[in-house]
């Protein structure tokens, strides 16, 4: 039957096109994922493994450094992501107004931070927030503070600094997603609402926000995954003498702790793998919750 042979040929062709990618993904993604799951049940230092059952999970609950890294990461997530996404949404709503003067310049300027590498902007923030640096100078000149803020020495301000830095880098990035989605909303909907006398604020909450729900969900999930893996910034901005996450581990994140466990201390691969699976599970749970919340509304 000629039909069947063309079908088989097409199927074979299909596999031929996807085979190189699937092979590579199998070796460099699927296999490492499964291996690290297996590793997380192994204990021991260096390359001497033995089966440890739930030993690593018990160790997690008793490890103050892990608990600190976990609470820092969650704090960054809970405070930074909403601030950044709300800012991005406000910028997008304002820039979506065609009557706004300087729209193109403003949009480009606010988007610009996301072309910098994480390392490059981290270095800029590190130098601007030096104790006698430009930011403290400006704050004191404007009489907002009386004494210089100890950005990289005080645990509280170090966290604030990291949150500000990430917001600077990513707000414009998220704004572009919202702007693109807003431009897809049919202007006649707004026109009709205006004629019916719906005020601007209500138009924003009753039309724009519901229409943007899929994009808001997308950016929330993406930002959650990104923040749970926070590494570059805390390994640069709040690092001193080559060790990140300072001062006194106040900006230590889960990813940085995994890095330290693997490469800085006597390598403890099994335990580090367990910590990495905490991130996997958190990503899974939080993405699921975010999808549920988006579905209900």
């Amino acid at each position: 039957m000629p039909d069947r042979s063309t079908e088989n040929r097409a199927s074979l062709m299909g596999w031929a096109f996807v085979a190189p990618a699937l092979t590579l993904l199998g070796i460099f993604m699927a296999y490492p994922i499964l291996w690290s799951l297996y590793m997380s049940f192994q204990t021991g230092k260096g390359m001497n493994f033995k089966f440890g059952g739930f030993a690593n999970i018990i160790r997690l609950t008793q490890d103050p450094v892990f608990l600190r890294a976990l609470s820092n990461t969650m704090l960054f997530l809970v405070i930074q992501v909403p601030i950044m996404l709300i800012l991005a949404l406000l910028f997008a709503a304002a820039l979506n107004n065609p009557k706004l003067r300087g729209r193109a310049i403003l949009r480009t300027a606010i988007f610009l931070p996301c072309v910098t590498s994480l390392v490059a902007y981290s270095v800029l923030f590190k130098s601007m927030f030096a104790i006698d640096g430009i930011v403290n100078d400006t704050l004191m000149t404007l009489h907002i503070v009386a004494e210089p803020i100890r950005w990289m020495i005080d645990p509280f301000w170090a966290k604030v600094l990291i949150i500000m830095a990430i917001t600077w880098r990513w707000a414009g990035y998220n704004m572009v997603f919202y702007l693109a989605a807003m431009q897809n909303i049919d202007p006649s909907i707004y026109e009709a609402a205006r004629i019916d006398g719906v005020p601007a604020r209500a138009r924003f909450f009753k039309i724009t926000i519901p229409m943007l729900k899929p994009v808001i969900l997308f950016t929330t999930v993406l930002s959650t995954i990104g923040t749970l893996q926070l590494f570059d910034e805390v390994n640069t901005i709040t690092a001193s003498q080559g060790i990140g996450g300072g001062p006194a581990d106040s900006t230590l994140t889960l990813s940085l702790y995994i890095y330290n466990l693997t490469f800085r201390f006597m390598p403890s691969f099994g335990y580090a793998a367990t910590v990495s699976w905490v991130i996997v599970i958190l990503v899974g749970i939080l993405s699921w919750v975010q999808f549920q919340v988006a579905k209900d509304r």
Partner: protein
Amino acid sequence: MSLTSKLTSLLMQAALWLAAFISVFPFYWMIAGATNTANDITGGKFTLGSNLIPNITKFFELVDVPRIFFNSFFVAIAGTFFTLAISSLAGYGFEIFRSKTRDRVFGGLLLMLSVPFAAMMIPLFVMFSAAGIMNTYLAIILPGVASIFMIFYFRQNTKAFPSELRDAARMDGLKEWQIFIKIYIPVMRSTYAAAMIILFMTNWNAYLWPLIVLQTNEMKTIQLVVASLATAYTPDYGLIMVANVLATLPTILVFFLLQRRFVEGMLGGVK
């Protein structure tokens, strides 16, 4: 317009210009910093200084700049090229040759997309050490070459590839791989261009994996050099700013020359 709405609009504009200023100022700060001494920079001097030449000289004395740049460009370009080739092949294959099994495999890939890199990092490190390819270009590039995100991106965009073109090419007796190379790639060149920009930026800016893989100074990329200079005991910000300008210049150029494509590539996966 009433007075209050005029006032709100004015306030809103002021806020936007302030946000734009905050967004752009660090770029100016970086350029000004390249012309100042380390003490001036951490002392908050934001006017241009006269220390540019000494900073450049010091940077070139301390670091093998041509070599570092070669490393960065080589890794970024080769990584981008292979990722485009492998991922566009797969995206095309998943979309053009639909089958139940392959659709299921694709669904599995999307599930893997949300597994963070941290969970693969340690096994990858052990694998690459055992294979004896640590500290090589290959080691930096290899884990990223088959990118699920890019496969997804190409699959989405292939939906817009006209099937009449494929049918006509088949009538002309072209083989499947010829259709891909002679018809698909030229027709989809704007899709490739957008993907290329995003990949180049990602590869150029990569930090964590290269930090794990690269062990010697002559293999380091510019990002690693900047980071290691900046986390030293007493960082010399003058020369660091020179390094930073050089590390950022390629991506800024790409952005300004190809802004529209850049945004297209970024939004590509969501369409």
